[in-house]
């Protein structure tokens, strides 16, 4: 089975984010970056499917030059090769534009299965996978918690709200968006890291793919800190002091202790 896993590099989870002076995005120069968490689960699922059924895992990533680090880490975990669509200003692409980039690189690969994380931790549209499926003309299912390969088809477990699930069957090729927690993530081994250095990492530009940034259909006009919906009483200081203050409030004001 040939599997392409689409991954994205996002600011590390505990990053202190500051709005850029332009007001249109964050100050992203001094941040550290990592693989988008749901994409890490998608990669792991791809690797496990390959281990069970044979085949190849190709990693596809659109992002600036720094994304190469995240791609190398995916190769170190066991992906066979990678395609990096290098674009310094991915922000100029709306979700449809970004998916068109991925589709242009994906099409010639003719994969049996395309996997993505269900959403990104930065923009969080949760749309790229489904848009990609539509562009590629593939059937899809989202928020997947289990994948079973059958003869020429797959049976997946789709997560619904409130603890409900549904099994869905579909022919291959297909696209799935993977939910966090579907599997247990592996760490790269020392051997894996060594091997990754010699694996193929092909870098292409949007121009190479014939997919320049079209005029976006939606525009992020202003980024800002959300206002508080409640008057929060915040305590800061020595642990013993703040703990005593909080307990007093909980006992005499909120009356929950």
């Amino acid at each position, binding site marked *: 089975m040939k599997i392409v896993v689409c991954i994205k590099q996002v600011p590390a*989870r505990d990053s*202190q*984010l500051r*709005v850029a002076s332009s007001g249109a995005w*964050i100050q992203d120069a001094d941040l550290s970056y990592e693989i988008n968490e749901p994409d890490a689960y998608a990669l792991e699922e791809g690797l496990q499917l390959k281990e069970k059924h044979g085949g190849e895992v190709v990693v596809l990533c659109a992002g600036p030059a720094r994304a190469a680090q995240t791609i190398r880490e995916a190769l170190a975990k066991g992906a066979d090769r990678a395609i990096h669509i290098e674009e310094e200003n991915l922000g100029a692409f709306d979700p*449809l534009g970004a998916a068109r980039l991925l589709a242009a690189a994906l099409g010639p690969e003719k994969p049996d299965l395309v996997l993505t994380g269900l959403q990104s931790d*930065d*923009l*969080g*549209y*949760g*749309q790229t996978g*489904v*848009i990609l499926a*539509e562009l590629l003309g593939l*059937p*899809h*299912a989202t928020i997947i918690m289990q994948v079973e390969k059958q003869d020429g088809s797959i*049976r997946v477990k789709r997560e*619904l*709200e409130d*603890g*409900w*699930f*549904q*099994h*869905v069957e579909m*022919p291959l090729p297909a696209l799935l968006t993977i*939910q966090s*927690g579907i599997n247990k993530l592996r760490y790269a081994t020392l051997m894996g890291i060594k091997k990754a250095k010699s694996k193929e990492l092909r870098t292409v530009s949007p121009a190479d793919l014939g997919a320049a940034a079209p*005029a976006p*259909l*939606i*525009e*992020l*006009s*202003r*980024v*800002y*800190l*959300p206002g*508080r*919906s*409640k008057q*929060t*009483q*915040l*305590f*800061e*200081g020595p*642990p*013993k002091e*703040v*703990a005593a203050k*909080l*307990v*007093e409030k909980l006992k005499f004001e*909120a009356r*929950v*202790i």
Partner: protein
Amino acid sequence: MSILVVMEQRAVQGPPAWSRMSLETLAAGQQLGRELQQPVSAAVLGQGIGSLAGELADKKLAHAYAVEHDLLKDYTPDTYSAAVRQLVEHSGATIVVFPHTYQVRDFLPKLATALGRVAVSDVVAHRVEDGKLVCVRQLFQGKLNVDVRFTGEPPYFASLQAGAYRADTLEAGSAAVEKFTPQLSPARTKPLDLFREAQRAVDLTAAEIIVSVGRGIKEAGNIPIVQKLADALGAELAASRPICDSGWLPMERQVGSSGQTVAPKMYLAVGISGAIQHLVGMKGSKTIVAINKDSNAPIFEVADYGIVGDLFQVVPALIEEIQKAKS
């Protein structure tokens, strides 16, 4: 120019019923209609949905569309996106809103792409500026907000987050029910059984006090620290999704959109940043307390009381103070 609200119904147990968020979205659609001075219609898709369409008939709407077809009995992305697409074209709607449910997440991007549009997903609020719709959504798991504008041609598509609008502002009125039969071909995907995992042994919804733990706890070996806090308060222990994903606590203790929705007297969140998927499961709690090292963590936006600090120092101190207060 007109607004179309696409409602969601489910027949998980018993006859088709509205998903809770659908009524919130309908109220939001009516609000948009007032602000933009445009007529508002609503649609329900499925099979055997006559009674739900009937419920739309006594709301203030221009049209109540009953979109019925045998192939809409069970949800599939192929049939639902094709049906809504045909309805959008038929109705001429210029703004189409949906509840941001798992089902909508599954087909809305496909529908928008088929029409060469980009949907704005997971909208938490909106404004009208110069007669134009500005959507507010969250970035970075709720750490920041962003204003989003549509820059292309209508129709514009948006999905609205659970709890962002209030269903109790729904305006009554009357609407003629219009049947709409889309042209559909069978879907490529085959939906099978709907099911729940093994019976839940823990009913968090019955707890008066919940202590909930998130990523800030760092490793499985640290869970006893919060268990002790829960014991001191006589509380149930719960967790955010990543903790259950990692197997540090069983899935049945998960609070959030994919776990349980709770509203206890007190919800104490320890080391939980407050991604929206978690907040929707607990923001109805009476008193919310949060302990987090990041003063900008979104959990503080819904908290009544907060301690900014290292949970490994704060929690032991808190246990001591609680024991003192209780003795």
